[in-house]
């Protein structure tokens, strides 16, 4: 507690109290403002969105943006033509990618951390810990090309390497599939750190007592450790969830077909179309301008994008609300944000 309960009536303390409150309110406002703007923009008309002086609330509220988004969802009308597939396809892609990332990633990361914390000992434990944590120190840009090679040729990045002897290593074609997005995200060093930090606080004697009682290592993990670790699982699931749902760069790199893209990438590409519509061929440019004309005529510009943005962020909000209780308990484990 920043301020003690006793002596709060003291004037200096009271001023400090209100100053702190004011500071926090400012912080919250700054955080909430983008969401507010996103929400009101989605109810503005197309003209109002594009007006030079932004308005603080919709002067002429309309649900045109939302309506058009439903067109995109269903993939009909001019707006629907902006994306090659209906929106729900991309949403479904996002769901699949997120689902597999969580389903594989959380247990694998948790097992790795548990094994490092409770099963490995001495020097080995220290080195493997440093190895896993070391992956955090790699800038993402540095791993981009190795990861690219790895996903091109899974699981051997350079299958030709041993071909001196005439043999080639087997390669699984995960390139341009969801697996190329999921597999590199399965082990998450940051979640590993969270898990490890938590498992280290579980006294060894509890594990040892369970061993003496006859529990196998997996049973001990499932029956004793797992129920104790619900908060840390909530934190890691939520961070992984928002990370997997909102990821942008990697799917853009490995996915070649629009039909396989997650929604986060497609919404961005839609925005690109708004900003920089244009084409080298006359005919195409004419079609595009015609299309945009139609869309603007239907009253949609940025308001539609805002609706998509809202749709995209809803699952993260829902996940937060579902895990809220545990997240608050686990927040001190996480130590940031």
């Amino acid at each position: 507690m920043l301020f003690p309960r006793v002596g709060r009536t003291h004037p200096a303390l009271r001023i400090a109290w209100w100053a702190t409150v004011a500071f926090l309110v400012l912080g919250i406002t700054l955080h909430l403002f983008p969401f507010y703007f996103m929400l009101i923009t989605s109810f503005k008309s197309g003209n109002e969105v594009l007006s030079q002086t932004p308005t603080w609330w919709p002067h002429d509220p309309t649900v045109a943006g939302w309506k058009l988004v439903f067109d995109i969802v269903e993939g009909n009308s001019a707006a629907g033509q902006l994306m090659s597939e209906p929106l729900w396809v991309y949403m479904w892609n996002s769901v699949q990618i997120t689902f597999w990332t969580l389903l594989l990633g959380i247990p694998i990361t948790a097992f790795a951390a548990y094994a490092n914390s409770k099963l490995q000992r001495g020097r080995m434990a220290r080195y493997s810990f440093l190895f896993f944590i070391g992956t955090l120190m790699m800038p993402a840009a540095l791993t981009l090309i190795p990861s690219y090679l790895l996903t091109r040729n899974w699981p051997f990045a350079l299958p030709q390497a041993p071909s001196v002897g005439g043999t080639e290593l087997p390669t699984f074609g995960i390139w341009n599939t969801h697996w190329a997005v999921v597999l590199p995200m399965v082990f998450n060093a940051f979640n590993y750190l969270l898990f490890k930090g938590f498992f280290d606080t579980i006294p060894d004697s509890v594990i040892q007592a369970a061993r003496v009682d006859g529990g196998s290592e997996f049973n001990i993990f499932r029956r004793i450790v797992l129920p104790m670790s619900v908060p840390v699982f909530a934190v890691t699931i939520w961070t992984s969830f928002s990370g997997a749902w909102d990821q942008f760069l990697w799917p853009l790199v490995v996915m070649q077909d629009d039909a396989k893209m997650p929604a986060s990438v497609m919404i961005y590409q839609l925005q690109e179309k708004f900003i920089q519509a244009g084409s080298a061929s006359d005919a195409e440019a004419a079609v595009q301008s015609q299309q945009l004309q139609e869309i603007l005529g239907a009253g949609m510009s940025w308001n539609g994008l805002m609706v998509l943005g809202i749709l995209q962020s809803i699952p993260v909000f829902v996940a937060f609300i579902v895990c809220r209780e545990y997240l608050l308990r686990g927040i001190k484990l996480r130590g940031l944000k």
Partner: protein
Amino acid sequence: MARIEVEKIVKRYSDVEGVGGARSARPALDTVSLDIADGETIAIVGSSGCGKSTLLKIVAGLEQPDEGVVRFDGEDVTAVRPQARGVGMVFQDYALYPSMKGKGNLAYYFQVHGRTEEEARARAQETADRMGIGFEQLLDQSTDTLSGGQQQRVAIARCIVREPRLFLMDEPICNLDAKLRESTRVEIRKLLRKFGISTLYVTHDQQEAVFMGDRIAVMRGGRIEQIGTFDELYYSPANLFVATFIGSPPMTVLPAIASGGLLTVAGAEWPAPVPVPDGPVRIGIRPESWFTGRGDGALMTVSHIERIPTERAAFVHGQVDGVPVVVAAPLNQPDTAELRIMPDMGRVYVFAADGEQCLHTPGPLDLF
């Protein structure tokens, strides 16, 4: 129920986990051998870091020894996993499963061994009856709502519910407050008697060790210095360490010069209890072996008197020639600044002047 043999166990921790964090050249356990007869309780006593908990973990299988053999009923179990050894262990911090209620803690063993729900329940019930009044309601509470003493009772119940071959207790009551410790001590002793299961009881409190153990093993620096009954340790210690470690208040050790059957201590001359070669020696005198107020005694400067009415005795604390001395005196010992004290020469221990070798011990007291 089992006869346990621990033979020449050596255990070295790798540098990361060395005692005190530094690389320790000395092994945590150095050729430790120990036999526990069927139904016997051995109390292992020693200061912290002497390896007593490590020994317990090796017997439980939680640690692997670098050398040596552990046998249960003659069968070599050194390589057997702790899951399969069938021992019951009580930990210093109780180590209850925090996500389960008391009941769940007791039932875990039966669940992982694929026994039926009914059996687990019946056995828990049986154990609750054995554990005495008020125990049953502990089973329905979640463990973090229990007090230290209650947690400890649940931990013991979890250990006995499965009828282990061997009890291992790692300072089970040292986290309790003094009063509770006393009553729990009695309770555990009663349970051990009732079950007649071989027990290793680790403690750093020698009174607890004396109370619990049929035999007591004194450990220091990874070695067992002596194993024996309390009388053996008290009256016939193997060396100076055991002599000063056992007994509270501890034995006084005074430097002395032996010459011609006489011991010169702090200016006083006393006849040696046994023929001692001439030269410097050390003599050990227990608090109760002092006579006070005799003219030929050594001069003791008194610092304070501790009176213990229940024992009908007073301990006079002071110094002789700069060496701290404790003398047991009658309860009505008057407060004086100085005191002439003289040992009962029949009950004096003689040690070599350097080293820990014991030259003479008085042997057990002839009480009857």
